[in-house]
């Protein structure tokens, strides 16, 4: 009941899905329609999990008055505030919900990741060393691709974008293909392990 039935659901439905790929029979199509309707009704609750988790983490911090607990109050207030704004005025263009996105969420989300530009420049200066032949090859390929992507590359020499194009379409392609085939086999193996009930970690711990 606690573990076996969910496992059986995965195994039975999973194998029907395998058959569904190869059998275009009406029964197969009907099964898919049924699954689609059910999973749509199940899906909204999945999002609740993340919200509940955030609430629990931050409310515990506030209750225990851990250092910097005041920021948890800010997080929860922002969460509730944004949700309320969406419910009261709707989520369409021109609403306060969109204003919050444009002037609060979007600038911060974008800036958070733009910090990486500073870190990568600092790493380029302090850490990218041609310590071995392999590392030198990596650096040369990187420099050619970097120059090949910007307009100045073609101004320096027509060969730079051509070399960059060649690197991306030949050695890079071979490298990524070798890796992708390994990943593909790994994905198939993991999916099979889930279908056969060997891989169960996605269900969470406990009995």
């Amino acid at each position, binding site marked *: 009941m*606690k*573990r076996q039935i*969910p496992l059986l*659901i*995965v195994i039975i439905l*999973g194998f*029907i899905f395998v058959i*569904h790929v190869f059998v275009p029979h009406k029964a197969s199509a009907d099964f898919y329609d049924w*699954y689609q*309707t059910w999973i749509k*009704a*199940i899906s909204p*609750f*999945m999002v609740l*999990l993340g919200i509940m988790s*955030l609430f629990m983490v931050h409310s515990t911090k506030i209750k225990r008055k851990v250092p910097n607990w005041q*920021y948890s109050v800010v*997080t929860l*207030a*922002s969460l509730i505030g*944004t*949700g309320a704004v969406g*419910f009261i005025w709707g989520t369409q263009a021109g609403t306060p919900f969109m204003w919050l996105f*444009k*002037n609060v969420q*979007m*600038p*911060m*989300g974008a800036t958070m*990741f*733009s910090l*990486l*530009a500073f*870190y990568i420049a600092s790493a380029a200066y302090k850490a990218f060393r041609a310590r071995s032949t392999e590392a030198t*090859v*990596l*650096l040369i*390929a*990187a420099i*050619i691709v970097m120059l090949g992507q910007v307009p100045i590359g073609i101004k320096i020499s027509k060969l730079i974008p051509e070399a*960059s194009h060649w*690197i*991306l*379409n*030949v050695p*890079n*392609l*071979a*490298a*990524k*293909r*070798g890796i*992708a*085939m390994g990943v593909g*086999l790994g*994905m*198939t193996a993991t*999916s099979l392990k*889930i279908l056969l009930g060997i891989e169960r970690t996605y269900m969470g711990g406990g*009995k």
Partner: protein
Amino acid sequence: MSFEVISNFIAAFFTLSIFSFLYKDNPFYKFAEAVFIGVSMGYAIPLVYQDIFIPFVYRPIFVEYKFLILIPTLIGYLITFRFSKNLSWLSRYPIAFSMAIVGMGVPLSMHSYVLVQMRSAMLPVDNINTALIFIGTVTILLYFFFSKEHKGVYGKVTNIGIWFMMVGFGASFGYTVMARISLLIGRIQFLLGDWLGLMK
């Protein structure tokens, strides 16, 4: 001061608060980070309600009277028991339903990532590039075969694979630099253009 100017000022305040982390961790950054997490998560609530709950749960049950939908609704609700000590096992039911689709992934991912890639790696070797792609792919696959020790002739062959991978990683690194710089350009375009009006 127009509404747009005030809005841009608020956006600039949050942008600069995040940038302030480059100097060192500080209360402005911490405040902005806390707001960011809350707002990002807060977005999901009305959107899920309006775009998912209403059309796929409320409407079928209460408008179209399809009471069978109550069953998946109940199954979906079980996910909220995830944090319960004694009843967390109930949350496995909705997870099981959503995991079942991996069945379809078995033949389709085999097709997309392995079979199609193998077919394209075995094109007629009619020029140097197709030959190089073939050699590169095979030597990299051999490199990842760890059941045989990488020494002697085999070691030399797998070494060719390493060289190909280094060029591939170099290409990825070059592109990564480009990506990170682009993100910063986007923010500086906002600060100089939208906020300060210095760009035309």
